[in-house]
């Protein structure tokens, strides 16, 4: 789209767009192209020679049990983070929307975890879930009778990074849900109430369907967050351990590329992630165009 009334100049528009182009070319297109190239090459550890090997890096990657495990880990982790932070966020937002008087106060009380860095959220929860000093760990041990030890047991470590990642995302979801809830016309709710629908019935048959565009958007953003922005959480809390139990895909790219110095493998992993995020974006745009809505 473009305006009808335009300015005309031969050089000015190019000058204006130049900084954007320069930055995009140097830090986006060139690295992306390099990544694509490295992903089909095998280079020796000193970077002296590289040979073209077609898709061998990719086939090796998808045959690697560690990589397949990392995929499963990441999917499980993202689903847990997304489901828990969305349901808690939606629950609190619904409550806040009912509490008409305290809305502004509640929003202020809930919004700030958004500003906490994932890594710092990791530190806070590392203390809360510390096997010997943590209060939440103590509670888990007492109430569930399990021997909580995230340093040694993979499932405990997984619970730990899920808690730290989901906690931070609750406030983000809350902001969207409260905005979405406020946009639902009061008259619809009132009409249903006059027809005798209970508050719970109204929630499931009116609020949730009308909230579906927000819900969809928030789900996509949460998945992206869980996949890519939780690097800090993993790095601070578990470094991918114990035994690779929390080795998410982004963490693995870092580990293989910067610590293992496996350029080709790391590049192939980057390409897989790029493809993944492109697919997510395309799906999102498609559905945003169609506007997910109440249909039946």
């Amino acid at each position, binding site marked *: 789209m473009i305006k009808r009334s335009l300015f005309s100049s031969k050089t000015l528009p190019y000058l204006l767009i130049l900084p954007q182009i320069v930055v995009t070319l140097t*830090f986006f297109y060139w690295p992306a192209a390099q990544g694509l190239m490295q992903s089909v090459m095998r280079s020796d550890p000193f970077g002296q020679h590289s040979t073209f090997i077609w898709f061998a890096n990719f086939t090796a990657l998808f045959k690697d049990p560690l990589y397949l495990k990392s995929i499963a880990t990441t999917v499980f982790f993202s689903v847990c983070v997304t489901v828990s932070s969305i349901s808690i966020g939606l629950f609190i937002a619904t409550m806040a929307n009912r509490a008409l008087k305290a809305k502004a106060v509640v929003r202020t009380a809930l919004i700030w975890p958004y500003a906490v860095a994932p890594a710092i959220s990791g530190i806070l929860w590392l*203390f809360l879930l510390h096997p010997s000093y943590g209060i939440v760990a103590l509670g888990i041990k007492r109430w569930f009778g399990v021997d909580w030890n995230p340093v040694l047991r993979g499932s405990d470590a997984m619970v730990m990074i899920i808690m730290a990642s989901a906690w931070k995302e609750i406030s983000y979801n809350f902001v969207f849900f409260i905005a979405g809830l406020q946009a639902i016309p009061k008259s619809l709710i009132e009409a249903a*109430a006059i027809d005798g629908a209970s508050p719970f019935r109204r929630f499931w048959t009116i609020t949730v369907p009308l909230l579906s565009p927000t819900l969809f958007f928030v789900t996509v953003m949460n998945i992206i967050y869980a996949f890519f922005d939780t690097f800090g959480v993993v790095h601070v809390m578990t470094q991918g351990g114990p035994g690779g139990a929390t080795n998410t895909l982004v963490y693995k790219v870092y580990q293989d590329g910067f610590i293992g110095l496996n350029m080709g493998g790391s590049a192939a992993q980057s390409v897989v992630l790029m493809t993944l995020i492109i697919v997510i974006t395309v799906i999102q745009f498609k559905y945003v165009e169609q506007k997910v809505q109440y249909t039946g």
Partner: protein
Amino acid sequence: MVEKTPILDTLTYVFLIAGIIIVGFPIIYAVIAATLPIEDVSRVPMPFIPGDQFWVNIREAWVRGDLGNHLLNSFIMASGITLGKIVVSLLGAFSIVYFDYRFRTVVFVSVFCTLMLPVEVRILPTYEMAANLLGPLQELWRFLHLDGIVSWIAGHEIEMTLEWSILDSYTGLIMPLIASATCTFLFRQFFLTIPEELCEAAKMDGASAMTFFRKILIPLSKTNIAALVVIEFVYGWNQYLWPLLITTKPQMMTAVIGLQHLIPAADDLPYWNVALAGSLLVMLPPVLVVLFMQRWFVKGLVEREK
């Protein structure tokens, strides 16, 4: 509400308060821990009454974590990213919306391809790029065999190496993170909603393109700019992976990365009070920005959806 439901209303407030306490608990607990001496913080369970060691712990964290220096680095990085992104994207969006030129569509498409790809998925090549910004020129040089030509002209063997590394520098911390089209996209969307008449009127009054940009477009975009300032500042301050990769010198580290050295290791004395005091200090700037600019921030965040 529609009908009177006293039980449900009470429950609403009970759940709401419970929710706020659960969400706030990690911070409340961290604040208490940060006020205790080490003997208390390592007791199980830790006492819930705040102690008087807050400033002692803060000072300890400040000195041990070199926070003064790291906070300054974080501040420069976050402001640089914010300022850079907003300036670059305002100019870019203006060019795309208000001008018609031959490569406009090409430019538009190529810029918006970058919309969703975060630094996390292209870390290794971006790192190589930062290690030598002139890498692409070097490749071109080699491709054209300019070495040979130069040697032939000069009459003796010459080897050219072009190198310009931005590792361990503010430029390196800031520039790669500016390369994202999210802000440009938002400004474009906003510019498209501005009435045509404004531009026509400005042109009729003899305003040049840049005058229109400065005197009309920028003032109209004030709320959007404010919202993006909050979002990008928080984004920049909280960056983790990129600063971790490109800073090796301790004095170039950012605050969020530096905190890692305060976490007590398994066989250290459990100085969690110091680690948490440091964490509180480092999270304070973005939290304050979000709280004080809440209105614009919420608007900007929700606007991103469209």
